[in-house]
């Protein structure tokens, strides 16, 4: 991979990060955040990525899909181009909540291929790792709130549908649906932000630590699956207002994925230490 093509790719990833920011703001505030800005940055990022891909293809005299990093970058560019075309034609802005973070993370993975010099000091490496762990744990905690509030929402919704008021005093004190809905939105947005930050920092750490080998780690693959479930949860909620049972089920699935990720990480660290 040519030096400059990686540079263009990293610039593109930087521009795509604005899209991620926009998605997070949209979830938490429940209205369009930086959409205009993010869209512009996205188009510009796509241009840089195209330059990077063309340069890479010309250097190798073949389509730049020879390994997983190149494929990631290539796929994310296709998704971006498709999104921009769909947006141009149908103005489907709500898709952006899903596409923006996805493209950003895919491009970032693509950009983490060429090995860089290792950590300048172990302190930085440890701090980097600590930030990753804290961000991910905060994300899990927020997800726990989302899942709990979703289940309570489900119970309260059932109760209101059944049209029966008193089945013991416990149910009388359940919070109103509106309050729960607000809590779910807030915790989901905050949790998603933390998990995304955690996964970006974690990927970079693994990349520096292990070079190109990092992409093959099973624990990292599970992390990305978890993140995708989270992303789906966020997307369905914002675009079609998923509530009740669907949110409850999906948030519990996401929580289970988090648990799996955690277990995978724990076993991996055990083997690393040995």
């Amino acid at each position, binding site marked *: 991979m040519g030096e400059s093509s990686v540079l263009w790719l990293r610039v593109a990833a930087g521009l795509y990060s604005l899209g991620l920011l926009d998605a997070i703001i949209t979830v938490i505030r429940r209205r369009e955040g930086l959409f205009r800005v993010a869209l512009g940055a996205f188009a510009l990022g796509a241009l840089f990525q195209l330059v990077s891909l063309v340069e890479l293809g010309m250097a190798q005299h073949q389509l730049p899909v020879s390994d997983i990093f190149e494929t990631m970058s290539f796929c994310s560019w296709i998704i971006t181009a498709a999104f921009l075309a769909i947006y141009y034609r149908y103005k489907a802005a709500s898709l952006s909540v899903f596409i923006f973070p996805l493209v950003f993370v895919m491009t970032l993975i693509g950009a983490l291929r060429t090995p860089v010099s290792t950590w300048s000091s172990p302190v930085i490496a440890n701090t980097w790792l600590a930030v990753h762990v804290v961000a991910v744990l905060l994300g899990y905690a927020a997800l726990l709130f989302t899942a709990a509030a979703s289940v309570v929402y489900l119970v*309260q919704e059932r109760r*209101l*549908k059944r*049209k*029966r*008021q*008193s089945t013991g005093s416990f149910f*009388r004190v359940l*919070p*109103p*649906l*509106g*309050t729960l*809905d*607000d809590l779910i939105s807030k915790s989901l947005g905050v949790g998603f932000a933390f998990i995304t930050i955690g996964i970006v920092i974690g990927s970079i750490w693994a990349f520096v630590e292990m070079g190109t080998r990092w992409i093959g780690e099973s624990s990292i693959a599970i992390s990305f699956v978890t993140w995708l479930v989270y992303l789906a949860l966020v997307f369905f909620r914002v*675009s*079609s*207002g*998923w*509530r*009740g*049972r669907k949110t409850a089920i999906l948030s519990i699935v996401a929580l289970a994925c988090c648990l799996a990720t955690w277990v995978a990480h724990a076993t991996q660290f055990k083997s690393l230490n040995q």
Partner: protein
Amino acid sequence: MKLLLTGLSHKTAPVHLREKLAIAEGTVPQALQELQKLGASEAVVLSTCNRVEFALSSPDDVEPHAIFDRFLTDWKGSSTVFDGHIYRLQARDAISHLFRVAASLDSMVVGEPQILGQLKAAYAMAKSEGTVGGLLETVLTRAFNVAKRVRSETGIGQMAVSISYAAVELSRKIFGSLQGQTVMIVGSGKMGELAAKHLRRAGASRILVTNRTWERAQELAKLFHGQAVEYTRFQSMLHEVDIVIASSGAPHYILHREDMQRVITQRKNRPMFLIDIAVPRNIDPEVDKIEGIFLYTVDDLEGVVSENLKERGKQAEQAEAIVIHEVELMMARLRIEEVTPTIISLQSQLEEIRAAEVSRALRRMPDLTPEQVQQFDAATRSMINKIAHGPISELRRNAGQPEGNQAIELIRKVFHLH
């Protein structure tokens, strides 16, 4: 002091008898004065549509029943017309009844808050006429506190027991705050108006009104400070509406499942509360199957109300326990107040004896130094205090006890107190 509580309530007498005993608001002062003239120390009159009650206190040697009988004869022509319906409660029973009335445990709708206000007004009236200030006042002020305690310690007044309030309560359960919610009234049924009024008062910020007759819609919109919507296009505005109150006279369903499915998708599944209080119904019951839509009919709301009433019944049991405890406390307090004069006369009698004996002794011993006089004085004082200590603590201990009166009588006899 003797206490009498007498009267009629919705539980003991039909309305035509209650009307007969009722004291018109303007003549209450006169009635209070009359009762006092007939020998009552204190009098309070409570006259509402569900109950007419008289509370009297009189000195121990005056029979309050006799006072009230004379009052009935003077004001209502005879003292016997209400026989079989009128209740006459004394002492503990009178106190217990007053507490229960104040706490709204004796009300037609248990827990309704108006009765406390009415009782307070009756007390204020008696106060301004100067017919309270003693035993009855003590009991009444305590009754107000008991009512407050019952209200804060049980959930007796918290649940909606009318259909329109049930609608407000459910809206709160669905949306949390009603601030910022939009209400649409379809049609102009009376009950719909009432529900809308309550929702408005509870904070709903925007009210839309639609009606087949444009003038009627505008009229109602003015009434609620809302906005009139043409009947032909109200469906296209439904996605902005959180609460729909349907009470139109249409002979068929005006909202169908497909319509509402479209609306809820447009709202991105944000919940909606539909209240159908029209007969025949305005909204297809199939609509209730849509996730995120809560459709309540009159029957559903009535179901909520009856559940709430049942729950109130449970809370009322707790409230009764509070009242029983409070009556005990009140009785004990009154008995302690009763023995206070005995204690004072015992102390003053002993002091009288001591003072007389000390001055006689000092006259016989003129040579004592001032210090010696002082010591003599102190010794005798301490002596009578020690003698008095036993009987005083016995008096206090027996006050408020079931068999306490015998012990109190005995002490009075032993010390020749009268």
